[in-house]
């Protein structure tokens, strides 16, 4: 495999799974020309006039869609760790004797470790999406036939619309659908909130199958997925385990150290002047992020400040802020708990968004860059503010990118991380895998202090008189090394064997993940 050095000095392959790759050229530097991809033209004459597209079962739908060896099949992670459909889908594909599938999920979860046997027996050739937990371990050990490709949520849309990934069959899990294929995620026994991650697939795939465990008579309102894009509808007994699809309630972290980080971030919002009338922010559902929202809410109430919109990952904490009038809107990318699902269903100001509106870099703008501040996590951050979210310091690939790369485009990007986990330093000299370039990462908040990127002179000036423990990142780095007993050794990896590549939001390759030597 030929590797070249890209604009951030990382070695990346120029050809992966037989597809030519463009090395990362810098933020905002690569601008492809030409037309977007398009799905084939279809005729109503080939679809039932009464709108009933229900077929007997998934196997039948796959057969009608022309499933064959080497195809690209897409699935979506709305059902998160409760997803039973994807596993059932590949059981079916295996039973049909089809091989070498490129699986193109929007994300994977530990529940998908069921698929390892299909990676082993060649039913699945490789994964393009995320390789979480057990799948990541499998990939890191060099056991996958092809090379993994990791993309952000926005990068996934970009790859589909730019024609980088052509989906043969999209299988969309729909918590509620009608026989025409209109589908929604905000109701039904397996309700998950919204179906935004499947939207691109429904528009661009050759064949679209909607699978539901809650078939309702036409029309299914609202239609987050439009039946006019759908080929077949399949009824299944159950899409998965509702308890694992959304949590009943999301809990704020109890860790005093993480709460301290959350408190620092809320104070930073106020001291740096981010928290002002009409502002906006993005917060995920990680323990620190939830707690941050709780502390920010207290500060907003005290100062009588109101946000224009919050981007989520919604949870009951954001919903409460919406209902208390602390924000005009929630622009929601995915719903993490039952309160989030309820609010999205009932409150018109709780708006469902997709990776197209929020994140797609090859569009005429997106919401992510309009957000005043985003609070994100990371597995590692280095002294040049580069961030890693996919591998751990031992070299193992264990997480997907999610919307992380896309959210880095916020006006101020804040990474909330403990400075070390047990004895594992999080602030390092050089990230194991470079997923986000330091020029987009503005503030690192740890329990041992807050580091502001020297590029952000405005933030440094604004917080000059703050009581927050603002320190150079090198100082935190040194302190952590001292606590952990010296600089951590780097993992032993096979530099000749790239097991996965990391795509940047524009489709270029920003870094490689190597096989871990055991």
């Amino acid at each position, binding site marked *: 495999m030929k590797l070249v050095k890209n604009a951030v000095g990382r070695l990346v392959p120029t050809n992966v799974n037989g597809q030519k790759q463009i090395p990362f050229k810098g933020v905002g530097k690569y601008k492809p020309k030409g037309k977007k991809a398009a799905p084939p033209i279809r005729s109503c004459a080939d679809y039932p006039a009464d709108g009933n597209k229900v077929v007997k079962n998934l196997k039948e739908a796959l057969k009608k869609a022309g499933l064959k060896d080497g195809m690209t099949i897409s699935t979506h992670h709305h059902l998160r760790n409760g997803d039973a459909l994807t596993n059932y889908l590949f059981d079916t594909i295996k039973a049909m004797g089809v091989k070498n599938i490129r699986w193109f999920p929007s994300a994977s979860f530990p529940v998908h470790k069921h698929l390892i046997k299909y990676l082993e027996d060649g039913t699945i050739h490789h994964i393009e999406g995320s390789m979480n937990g057990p799948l990541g371990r499998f990939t890191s050990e060099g056991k996958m036939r092809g090379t993994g490709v990791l993309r952000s949520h926005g990068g996934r849309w970009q790859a589909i619309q730019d024609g980088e990934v052509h989906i043969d069959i999209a299988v969309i899990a729909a918590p509620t659908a009608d026989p025409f294929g209109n589908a929604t995620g905000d109701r039904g026994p397996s309700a998950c909130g919204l179906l935004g991650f499947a939207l691109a697939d429904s528009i661009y795939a050759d064949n679209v199958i909607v699978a539901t465990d809650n078939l309702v008579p036409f029309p299914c309102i609202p239609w987050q997925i439009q039946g006019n894009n759908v080929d077949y509808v399949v009824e299944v007994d159950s899409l998965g385990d509702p308890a694992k699809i959304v949590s009943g309630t999301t809990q704020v972290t109890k860790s*005093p*150290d993480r*709460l*301290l980080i959350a408190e620092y971030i809320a104070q930073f919002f106020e001291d740096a002047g981010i928290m002002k009338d009409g502002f906006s922010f993005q917060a995920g559902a990680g323990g620190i992020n939830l707690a941050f929202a709780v502390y920010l809410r207290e500060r907003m109430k005290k100062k009588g400040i109101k946000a224009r919109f919050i981007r989520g990952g919604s949870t009951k904490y954001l919903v409460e802020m919406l209902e208390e009038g602390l924000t005009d809107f929630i622009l929601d990318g995915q719903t993490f708990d039952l309160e989030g699902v309820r609010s999205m269903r009932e409150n018109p100001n709780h708006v469902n968004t997709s990776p197209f509106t929020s994140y797609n870099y090859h569009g005429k703008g997106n919401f992510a860059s309009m957000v005043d501040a985003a609070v994100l996590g990371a597995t590692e951050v280095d002294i040049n503010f580069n961030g890693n979210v996919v591998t751990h*310091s*031992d*070299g193992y690939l264990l997480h997907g990118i999610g919307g992380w790369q896309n959210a880095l485009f916020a006006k101020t990007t804040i990474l909330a991380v403990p400075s070390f*986990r*047990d*004895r*594992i*330093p999080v602030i390092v000299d050089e990230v194991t895998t470079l997923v986000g370039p330091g020029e987009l990462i503005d503030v690192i908040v740890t*329990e*041992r202090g807050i580091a502001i990127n020297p590029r952000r002179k405005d933030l440094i000036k604004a917080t000059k008189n703050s*009581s927050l423990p603002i320190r150079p990142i090198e100082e935190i780095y040194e302190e952590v090394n001292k*606590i*952990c*007993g*010296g600089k*951590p*050794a*780097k*993992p*032993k990896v096979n530099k000749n064997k790239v097991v996965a590549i990391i795509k940047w939001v524009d489709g270029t390759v920003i870094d490689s993940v190597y096989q871990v030597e055991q």
Partner: protein
Amino acid sequence: MNKVTAGKRDAKVRSDCYIELERKNSGGIKLDLKSKVSVMYGNDIKNTIHEMCRFFGLKHAGIYIEDSGALPSTIMARFELAVKRLFPEIEKEYLPDFNPANDYKTKKNRLRRSRLYLPGNEPKFFPNAGLHKPDGIILDLEDSVSPLEKDAARLLVRNSLRAIDFYGAERMVRINQLPRGLDDLQYVVPHNVHVILIPKCESADDVKLVENKVNEIKKQFNIKRNIYFMPIIESALGVIKAYEIATASKNNCALAIGLEDYTADIGTQRTNEGKESFFARSMLVNAAKAAGIQPIDTVFSDVTDMEGLRKSVIEAKALGFEGKGCIHPRQIKVVHEAFAPAEEEIEKAKKIIDAFKEAKKKGLGVVSLGSKMIDPPVVKRAERVMELVKSMKN
């Protein structure tokens, strides 16, 4: 005994390690390490263990380690424990380097509003404890350590006093109830402990026993710094003898009350209103004040009830207490806020101090504010208020 174990393991254990050590007569040192951080620090851990084997003269042994991310000083404490459990005759100590950041002093009358209890055998709580800015941290060898792990906690507390940075918090250790507590002292006195908490104190003799032992060790290690004592009164007898205890040593810096044991001792239940302990608490405040040291209140045990905690501190402050025990880092901020002087109190203190300075400048013997004469204790109280304000800003 041919095989011993030390430390902890299970899915929930973090920042600790489990060690099995087996006596062998040949074959050298056989080390089997499973570590969460083997990539980053595996070699480092192995080097430490081999060095310690040489130090203790261990030539042949089977060693199995399951490490869940223990810091170096923890690994050293656990392995020393295993060695000493297998060879009780070994007396020498393997000490981690003394962290230069830990070489700070304390003062007898420093602020002691909050003191955070850290169970002495739970290393995961140590490295971040100081970040929550308690006035003091207490490494506890007593009630939070199971009787079977007392030896483990001693070594861990000793190593942590040397290696872990508590970021300026006063460094306290609660020793075991006497007489066992006397044997704890050699593990803490040589390692810059600031304050020894003496639990279940019932007489001046208890304090004197500790003082004598401390002095003995200080002499042996040529330690010049003062080590202070905070007797904890936890019984009816202790309450009656509060003044005798408070004045037992010139190095007493505070007198604390422990209400769980006290209420049990007088045969009643602890309530939030605290009527049952009013006498004891007042008695303790009086004894401490009469002895010129700080009265310190008990802990508030419901870590989720911040409002209850706030009320309890305000009540303690009204009774005359100057500090409160904390069992969770989140309590610290609330305690500090509740002990903070009110706005008008601060304003008044400023005026008094200004008047005092003015009078001093003019060489006046008598300080007055408006038409009122100000006595020295009033000035002292005002200074105390301003000190509090200053420390709150830090």
